[in-house]
């Protein structure tokens, strides 16, 4: 399909959300952002093609969400990329079943590459 891919970004920080949105839109993606409060259901209902989640979110946990999604038959096909400020948490990310792990701050090119890989 030549339809734009929908990417869901979840992060505490509005600046990050905003900048990522701009970047991804520039790169030709459709971007849905969510800060906090949304449940997993909400997220799924938004029908993303890929989820980009911060690993520590206030309210709900990026890695838990990832784990939940990956364990769910219906959602486990969804690519989830977790990112975090801390490198140490890479193992945790893998444990949660994340498809990829990016550290903040990230290189734009790296991010875009990774996205492409998993879409």
């Amino acid at each position, binding site marked *: 399909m030549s339809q734009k891919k929908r990417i869901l970004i979840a992060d505490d*920080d509005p*600046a990050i959300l905003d900048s990522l949105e701009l*970047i991804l839109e520039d790169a030709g993606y459709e971007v849905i952002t969510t800060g906090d409060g949304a449940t997993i259901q909400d997220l799924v209902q938004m029908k993303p093609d890929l989820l980009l989640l911060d690993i520590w979110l206030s309210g709900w946990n990026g890695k838990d969400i990832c784990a939940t999604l990956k364990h769910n038959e219906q959602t486990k096909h969804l690519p989830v990329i977790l990112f975090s*400020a801390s490198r140490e948490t890479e193992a945790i990310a893998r444990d949660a079943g994340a498809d990829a792990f990016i550290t*903040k*701050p990230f290189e*734009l090119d790296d991010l875009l590459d990774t996205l492409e890989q998993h879409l």
Partner: protein
Amino acid sequence: MMRNEHPASSLDFLAGGGEMGERIRSFDWASTPLGPAEQWPQSLKTIVRIMLTSSQPIWIGWGPDLIKLYNDPYKAIVGGKHPEALGQPVRVVWREIWPDIAPKLRTAMEDNVGTYDEAALLIMERYGYQEETYYTFSYSPVPGDNGGVGGIICANTDDTARIIGERQVKLLQTLAAETSDARTIGEACRLSAELLTRNPQDIPFALLYLLDQDGKQMTLAGTSGIERQHPAVFEQVALDQDAPWPFAEVMRTQKPCLIDDIQQRFGALPTGAWKKMPHQAAILAVAPSGQTGQAGALIVGLNPYRLFDESYQGFLKLVCSQISNSIANAQAYEEERKRAEALEEIDRAKTLFFSNVSHEFRTPLTLMLGPIEEIRDDPNTAPANRERIEVAHRNALRLLKLVNTLLDFSRLEAGRIQASYEATDLGIYTAELASNFRSAIEKAGMKLTLDLPALSEPIYVDRDMWEKIILNLLSNAFKFTFEGEIAVRLEERRDHVVLQVQDTGVGIAPDQLPLIFERFRRVEGVRSRSYEGSGIGLSLVQELVKLHKGEVEVTSTPGKGTTFTITLRKGTAHLPADRIGATRTLQSTALSAAIYVEEMSQWLPPEEEEPAGFPAEIPAGDRPRIVLADDNADMRDYICRLLSDRFTIEAVANGKQALEAIRRARPELVLTDVMMPEMDGFQLLQAIKAHPDTARIPVIMLSARAGEEATIEGVRAGADDYLVKPFSARELRARVITHIKLARSRYESERKLFDLFMQAPAAIVILRGPTYVVELANPTTLAIWGRSSEDVLHKPLFEGLPEVRGQGLEPLLEVVYTTGVPYVGNELKVALDRTGSGQLEDVYFTFVYTPMRDAVGTIEGVMVFAFDVTEQVLARQRAEESELRFRTLADNIPNLAWMADRGGRIYWYNSRWYEYTGTTPEQVKDQGWEQVVDPQDLPAVRRRFHRALYEHEPFEMVYSLRGADGTYRPFLTRMVPIRDAEGTIVQWFGTNTDITEQKRLERQKDEFLGIASHELKTPVTSIKAYTQLLERRFRKAGDERASELLKKMDMQLNKLTSLIADLLDVTRIESGKLLFHPAPFDYNSLIQEVVEEAQRTTTRHTILQELGPSVTLTGDRERIGQVLTNLLTNAIKYSPKADTIYVKTELKDNMVITSVLDFGIGIPAEKQQHLFQRFYRVEGETQMTYPGLGLGLYISAEFVKRHHGTIWVQSEEGKGTTFSFSLPLSLAPEEHLLEGEQSA
């Protein structure tokens, strides 16, 4: 100040000046050639002024007549002529000395020259008599108003006293000095009188008289300045008359007497130094010195120009005193001399006497000997009688010998013996003579050694004299030698021979040696076989040797022996020629050696067989000393003879002498008679037993009283034995020997014990009786008590140590003394006054009181055995005190604290410890502390605790302890060793400090850091995102410049990110949360990656790689990469001017060594050590020259360390730096990357 303002004030110059001023002012000068004062010439006025204001005696003579004016001080000089002298011509005033002064005045007046005379003699007559005076004066011409000399001014000084005084002193000195040699009274007087002529001024003439022995007359002893023939001189003057000289009064009162009319009495008299005759004489007493001094008187013709005043009298008295002294000295000499003469006289008389006596003796003796020998040799004589005759014979011979010797001597003295010198083989002859003594010597248990070699020539001696010499010397040697040997030796020298008689006898004391050859000299107080002897023998020997022109000498060492040495010259040159080979005049008075030998054998004990079974002998060669007291001389002799072979006996006549003898030298036994004068046997016994020093000496009493009672009485009195006379010799000997042996063995064992006591390092005291008399206190005791033995010995204990009373010792002693139960005291404190100053010192004793019992078991004393343990007690107290202090301290600190012994066993906890842990001492004893340690930490704690104990190192560790509420808290535990003075660990002291709070803070810090970096990263993320986005858009839009700017921004953001990452890493390292993810990876490819990345950050530098072959490392790839990045970043940063950086690898010893080289600023040597520390940054010119947090190397070092590698740097300032680190190629199975370990 009022001034006389009347116009003609020309009398002002007469103002003042005292009396003379007044007189001058009121004098009628107009009636004199001077005219009125107002009209006097100015110069006169001036000098009058000077005179009146001077304090020196001054007179002025003015005008041709020299009218006299004078001042107040001059009044004394004019004396009786004042005040008439004022205004008179000098010629009138001083008419008596006008002849003397006129010429001088003329010189001044006419020649205008001043005169000066010093101490000029002027016979003045100012008091109505002529006077000897001495003045120093000057006449100074004073110009008149119309030129020429107007008058003179004269200043004076009275030198009279000085001049007279000087000459008097001189005479006295002379008298003292020059009469000291006078040896007789007459000489002293003569000499003194002569010396008086040396002062003819004060003593124109003198006569010295001495009082006769009868006290009735004075006899002339010396004259001075007057002829003996002069009519005034009388050889003798009776005292009872006044003429010619009245001595009586003077001798009686010893006061001087003045005679005025000597010219009338005697006419012309000598004038001495003067021209005028003395008109007076004085008689002064010359005092005798002492009771027997010689009294005298001195008549002195007196100086006509002096009054016999006190001064003159005093001087003459001193003269008499000097004379008296010299007489006294001379008298002393005379007396001494008279004494010496008297002694000589006595000596002479003695000799004469002896000569007479011995002559008278010889006759009957010789007549006796004949019949005695007949009876002795008659076979019919009964044996008992023969014995008695033998005794008689022996004694007669002895007497004869003595007499002969005396006679010889006196004849020698009188010069009636003449030697007859014959050539003699001295060796053989001497041997013959000496061998007569052999048997006697050997019988006495001694050795006779004859060393008499043949000489190369015969010696000229008088045979009889030589015989006497040898016999006397040998007899003497035998008398004083009791053991050892007597040796006679002959030695030949070049021109003389030397004969020596040497013995090993008692010797002669050094002070007696010089007197040994003196006649009648017997050696006092020395052991000898016999006390008989006239003391003449050696003197005779000396005289005989002298006759041979030889020398005899004696040397001796008391207790060792004596040697007599005779030296004779060879040949005949030294002998009177006419006596060589001449017939003898010396009758063979000596019955030669026989007599000597006979005598000697008498000194040996009678030969009695000692019976078998005799009590054990006293060792031969041993000579115990016995004091024997008996008033009967025969008895003394008898006993002496009985015992003197084996004992040394000092025999005295009564108890008192015995005591003295005992005190002088302690005997081993005392034999005493009972009945004696002055002090009898029982009294002696009492005295001996009373004194502790002598109480142990065994005493045997000899008594005429028989019967049981006597024996009992004797024993009861304390005698050790009692013998009744007559007693057998055997009995006496046996008892003596027994008692001595007994006493000795008792003494021996006592001695041994005593020695033990004395040397023991403990205090040993023996207390006797209920008052605890200190019988013995060994040196250690005395040292502890600070007393000398006199202070305490033989006194009750509490008398010698009064300060010890009432300190609790009395009851202890009492118990021991009464019950016989020993007492052991441990660390008892006693206060002693050890320095005698009254200051009490505490001494601690550990001691035993043991009862001492006598032979029947009664307690008679207490023995104390004690150790001074003060030091130990004090040390222990000190230790206890300091420990107590420690504990008090420890209890008051907020930490938990405890103390462990050397082995690490904790024996004390402070109260906080118990509070915190909620435990009781019971629970935690025996390492119970382990219970409260967090079980997780316990193994490590135990391990490190024991390591500290073992290695004697302080221990530090953080681990958790369980509190009373059950929760564990972290504590920082520290334990340090406590050492003693020698450095040995005596205990351990530990604290636990609650660091919960501290930890919490740390955790907070870490958390903060963690949060902070997280927080920092977030905005950085978005900024970076924006930046990159913009960069793309601008690039797309073709705005290269903007795009470049944004690229730069991006780079900076990377740096920022890197810094944040480092900070995070540090935090993790610190909190031990750094996790590694080891995995194998290819090293070279990592390097390349990192290098590429780094290269992108710099355009100025080129990073070159020189890599070895690649290896596969097992480690955290990311972290290693971080290290490389860090090093490269540094290399770039610190070589701003260079352009090349190398990265090298090298394989070595199972390690890969990576090096990053730069050619930058380098690092100074002193900074290199700090490089790997946290936050350390290299300084640049400003703070921001080399930006960065300084964490990179620290982190790199940590990472490398965790990988079991090492990191180091080589650098030279200005040249460049090389950082290198090594990584092991493979890790041993048990090794794993080091976990973070807490370090406090």
